[in-house]
């Protein structure tokens, strides 16, 4: 139809993913609604949203595992509807659930992938990757016997093995310890520095802040996107941070006050946020003089913004 993007040299374009109006339903329930997004080449794009928000479905549409009901677009310059085969050659997809062969060893899994992509020296490529992901000495271990962190490294190794141009990572760090998570993100940044585009879905806010750009999706709707700062700015959320003691009464009091949209404890402090700055200040006015607490105007955190977006989307789409 719009043949433009496919006819130009794919690698010449600076956009890796460019989709418009993606919609997908499963047995009458709309999982992705009119979703449009653009991801720049060489960037790390974070995909955030609550469980069941359509992140996995969107990722599967992008790599040709699902056909959208409507909408169109390109992935690495290839049409997502017509060129699924070409996309698969250049995209590495790391599934949410470990989906390599549990009864194959690390080396055998990697050699399988290398052969499947027709790499000339499958053994060599697998050996190089084992070294790169730090699994040397565990080559012959069955994937089933690896711990969560090692499985995740193996899965990342398998999907980067055929030198893809785009990585789609679906909650790659779920259930992985902090050290392994940090190593994982360092690796992702190293890959992006080499020119790879990475689309990664996650629940973790600290991970979102490691992305160049983020998008927030809830109930199939893309609610916000941009850099972290842009998303926070666009939220127009005012936040006060309260420090002190005995928040329990305060929390209960504030939660139902008009003007207060969100109260969330953060360790020894409390975040009180509202969409209307003036209304929020009126609401908290009577508590600000209490010597038990210290009130400070602050920037909303990304988490504040997302929880607020989630609350709002619930109102809008889940009536």
């Amino acid at each position, binding site marked *: 139809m719009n043949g433009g993007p496919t006819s130009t040299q794919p690698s010449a374009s600076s956009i890796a993913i460019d989709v418009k109006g993606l919609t997908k339903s499963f047995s009458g329930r709309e999982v992705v609604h009119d979703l449009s997004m653009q991801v720049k080449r060489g960037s790390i794009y974070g995909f955030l949203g609550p469980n069941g928000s359509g992140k996995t479905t969107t990722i*599967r549409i992008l*790599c*040709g*595992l*699902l*056909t959208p009901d409507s909408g169109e677009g390109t992935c690495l310059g290839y049409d997502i509807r017509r060129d*699924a*085969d070409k996309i*698969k*050659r250049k*995209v590495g*997809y790391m*599934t949410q*659930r*470990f*989906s*390599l*062969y*549990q009864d194959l060893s690390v080396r055998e899994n990697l050699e399988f*992938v290398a052969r*499947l*992509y027709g790499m000339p020296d499958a053994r060599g490529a697998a050996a190089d990757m084992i070294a790169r992901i730090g699994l040397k000495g565990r080559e012959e271990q069955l994937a089933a016997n690896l711990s969560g962190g090692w499985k995740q490294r193996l899965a990342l190794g*398998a999907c980067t093995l055929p030198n893809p141009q785009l990585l789609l990572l679906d909650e790659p760090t779920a259930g992985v310890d902090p050290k392994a998570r940090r190593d994982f993100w360092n690796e992702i940044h190293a890959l992006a520095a080499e020119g790879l585009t990475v689309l990664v879905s996650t629940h973790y806010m600290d991970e979102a802040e490691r992305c160049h750009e983020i998008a927030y999706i809830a109930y199939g709707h893309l609610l916000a996107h941009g850099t972290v700062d842009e998303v926070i700015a666009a939220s127009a959320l005012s936040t006060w941070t309260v420090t002190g003691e005995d928040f329990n009464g305060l929390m209960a009091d504030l939660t139902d006050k008009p003007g207060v949209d969100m109260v969330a404890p953060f360790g020894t402090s409390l975040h009180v946020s509202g969409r209307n700055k003036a209304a929020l200040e009126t609401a908290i006015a009577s508590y600000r003089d209490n010597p038990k607490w210290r009130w400070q105007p602050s920037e909303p955190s990304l988490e504040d913004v997302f929880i607020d977006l989630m609350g709002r989307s619930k109102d809008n789409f889940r009536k």
Partner: protein
Amino acid sequence: MSATDTIRNGEEREPAFGFWRRSYAMLVKEFIQLRRDRVSFAMIIMLPVLQLTLFGYAINTTPRNLPTAVLTQEDTDLGRSILKAMENTSYFHFTREVHTVAEFNELLQSGKVLFGVEIPRGFERAVRRGDRPALLVAADATDPVASGTALAALGPLVQTALAHDLHIGDPPDMPFEIRAHARYNPAAESRLNIVPGLVGTILTMTMLIFTALSVTREIERGTMESLLSMPIKPIEVMFGKIIPYVMVGFIQAGLIISIGVLLFGVPVLGSLTLLGLLTTLFITTNLSIGYTFSTIVQNQLQAMQLSMMFFLPSILLSGFMFPFAGMPVWAQYIGEVLPLTHFIRIVRAIMLKGAAMPNLQYDTIALAALMLFAMTVAVTRFRRTLD
């Protein structure tokens, strides 16, 4: 101390009839799961009803109307009367008439007929002269069940019919002799028939299961998602999954045939190479069908059920357990679409009758056609997306 307390507390809280409550909980859960799996549920109902009616009507251990060839070297009233009398026994059904011994032998060897009647030249004159000439009835005795009853009935029945028809002498003194010749298995040993049949039956069972679980296993273990995201085509998945088992099946077939020859003394009269080639074809056909099943079903239980649903008619309607020619025509049509039917003809013909390729063309082509059909269905049914 606190640990013992906890244990004691736990024991105190143990509900009455704990054993039955927990068993009941498990039972309820199983019923719910069974009800959710609609296909399996349907099979539980369909399988016995279908199989019982199918086999109840199809299986016949005293087969009648068996295909018979006639080699006529003279055309006389007496000859025609004898044939008529044979047909009247209802055991024989004359389907072919040939004029040379070569054609006659070919029909028997290829299994197109189970019996052959030869009326020799000068037969009637010899009868009139009182020479008591011989009327040759050759039977394909590879399956003693199929040929046995008919052969046993042959003498007395024909005699009675002829006596009534032609008024040539009373039963005690027949003017000619019926010489029955049980070919290929003169001693009517059933192992000679069963062992080659078992080659096919065992291969059907093992090959079908190997591939019937292959695709569902990938789906149930979650590896399908990775596999589909990689650049592999359905036909490549299929070949990759079938070929290893062709080798496994080949080894298995070699084992069964060796045991048959060494332990049971079953001969291999025909070419071992031809047997190997056609066995490989049969193995591949079964693997393709199993693979097709695995692209249709949703889980491993269904795959097993479907395999059983295919396996049972393969045993009962293929001519392995009961004479193929004795089944009603509709059941024979079902038999024709089962690979085992064709392979049993092939393996019996090669091992017991020394048949060569020209005798086996039809069954070979049928096997190849079934294989291609199954493969085509599998490749088109294979879902390339998770939709």
